[in-house]
């Protein structure tokens, strides 16, 4: 029996382990429950939810790339009302933390979503200020510190659960974005969302993805994510949830050393639905091998040259 303590804290939220499923790679959890009991996870972030139903982008929505993939799904979801009625009641019954990813076109949308989620029984809201595949809102807001602060503050005033702000890497100084979220009262920041990319079919001269551009994810973005997590770790005092290309328990440890209090796993799940349980099973021995007795003690313990 391992004596390694895997529990971790993100602000006031305590998770049984630091592995949280990333938004857009786990649906609302139900599809994944045929593979394993979601109770093994530290938490689940839902698919991005909008005020009204969204059909998403036309296909092709994905393309392969070295070290990962591009996607431009375009936030297809049934809308907040239906999600609260049909998807969240099941998800909050699972023995794991439930975080709802909220995506809006403007400040009003984010406020509406935060308001609608009051009293539902979720554990946190992750403000999606970073999706690169929609025309308005999301990344457009998340690239402007003043807007990040404004949206965060407005949601913070209304919501009855902690507010996480999910940041985009498609900015010059991500630390400034994290600072803006902190100034708005965010309980945590999660990063990174996907890197904006493109593939072209050389025969047709058309972009492979119908949306022309898509978000790049997978192990190829991992070093970028690590660097950005560390940059934010130095910039703010609120906890950081690190994500971007995590493929193994070693990657989890690396991300936490960079400054993440917890991590999210996304694209790896698409390749192997059992990947998160596999990482959780392997985590104690990886921690043991570096002389740690808990996950929380390694947060931000990278020793820079």
């Amino acid at each position, binding site marked *: 029996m391992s004596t390694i303590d895997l529990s971790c804290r993100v602000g006031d939220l305590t998770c049984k382990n630091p592995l949280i499923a990333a938004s857009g*790679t786990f649906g609302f959890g139900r599809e994944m429950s045929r*593979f394993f009991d979601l109770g093994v996870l530290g938490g689940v972030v839902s698919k991005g939810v909008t005020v009204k139903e969204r*059909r998403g982008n036309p296909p092709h*929505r994905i393309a392969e790339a070295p070290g990962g993939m591009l996607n431009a799904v375009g936030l297809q979801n049934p809308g907040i009302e239906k999600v609260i009625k049909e998807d969240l009641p099941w998800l909050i019954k699972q023995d794991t933390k439930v975080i709802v990813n909220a995506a809006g076109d403007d400040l009003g949308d984010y406020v509406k979503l935060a308001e609608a989620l009051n009293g539902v029984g979720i554990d946190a809201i992750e403000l999606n200020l970073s999706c690169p595949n929609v025309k308005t809102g999301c990344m457009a807001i998340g690239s402007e510190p003043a807007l990040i602060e404004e949206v965060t503050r407005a949601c913070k005033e209304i919501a009855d659960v902690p507010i996480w702000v999910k940041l985009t890497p498609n900015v010059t100084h991500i630390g400034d974005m994290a600072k803006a979220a902190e100034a708005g009262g965010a309980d945590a920041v999660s990063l990174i969302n996907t890197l904006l990319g493109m593939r072209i079919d050389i025969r047709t001269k058309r972009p492979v993805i119908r949306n022309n551009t898509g978000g790049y994810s997978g192990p190829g973005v991992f070093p970028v994510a690590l660097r950005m997590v560390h940059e934010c770790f130095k910039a703010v005092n609120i906890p950081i949830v690190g994500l971007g290309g995590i493929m193994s328990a070693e990657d989890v440890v690396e991300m936490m050393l960079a400054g993440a209090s917890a991590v999210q796993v996304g694209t790896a*799940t*698409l390749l192997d639905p059992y990947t998160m349980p596999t990482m959780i099973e392997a985590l104690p021995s990886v921690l043991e091998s570096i002389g740690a007795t808990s996950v929380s003690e390694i947060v931000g313990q990278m020793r820079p040259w």
Partner: protein
Amino acid sequence: MMERKYRHDATITKVDHLDEDNVFLTLNAPELSELSKPGQFVELETSQFLNRPFGVAICDKKAGTVGIGVRKVGKGTKEIFEYKAGDKATLFGPFGYGFSISEKTSRAYVIGGGTGIYPLLFLLQELKRAGIKTYTGCGFQSLTHALMIDDFSHISDDYLTACEIGEADVSGTAVDALAELYERHGQSDGTIVYACGPIPMLKAVNAWCEENGIDAECSFEARMGCGFGVCRGCAIPVIRDGQPTYDRCCVEGPVFRRGVVDWEGL
């Protein structure tokens, strides 16, 4: 360690190169063969980033084997083409909503195009088991591109190969074969068309069925991310509650009733 019911570490037991671009693999995967239904697919790991989806083409629960047909088109399938008997392969599945075999079905027209024929072999196996008459038409570019004619004609009550180039049973497309078979065998209550092939073929099958008032189940393919419904990468345009939207090829599909598909939106 927790059980991993949908992950299969299989051994390739047989490799049949059908021609210079097509290979048929038989894999030893008892749990997978136990779970698989016609029209469902598996995700095969390669050295490429994303797994590659293939319809289950044969399923022998007694022997504990499944088969898949693979055409060499890109890096992933090129690698699969080089597999040898004895090699290991990791698969996930079975996934997706397959063909439905109703007790009311009395005769089935089974129409395939190109590599779309592969999953129909498993369907034919189950239709035969259910005592349903099967009339099969497979369309190819030319006779040199034709695949598995013996297997399909052997298992079907009537079988036609259609090619647009060269001498075949039917000179034309898979839908021309369907028309010819229908001419021969007609319909009764509980007649259905099952189809799998490229989108132009499925569109033509739908148009023919519309004209003749026959229901059809069509199996689609799409670029997939996960294969089990969480990424929403494999969108197929459909009409739900009178509104155009996108279903997941990997969960609501790959087999769709023709009335659900938004044919204009494809």
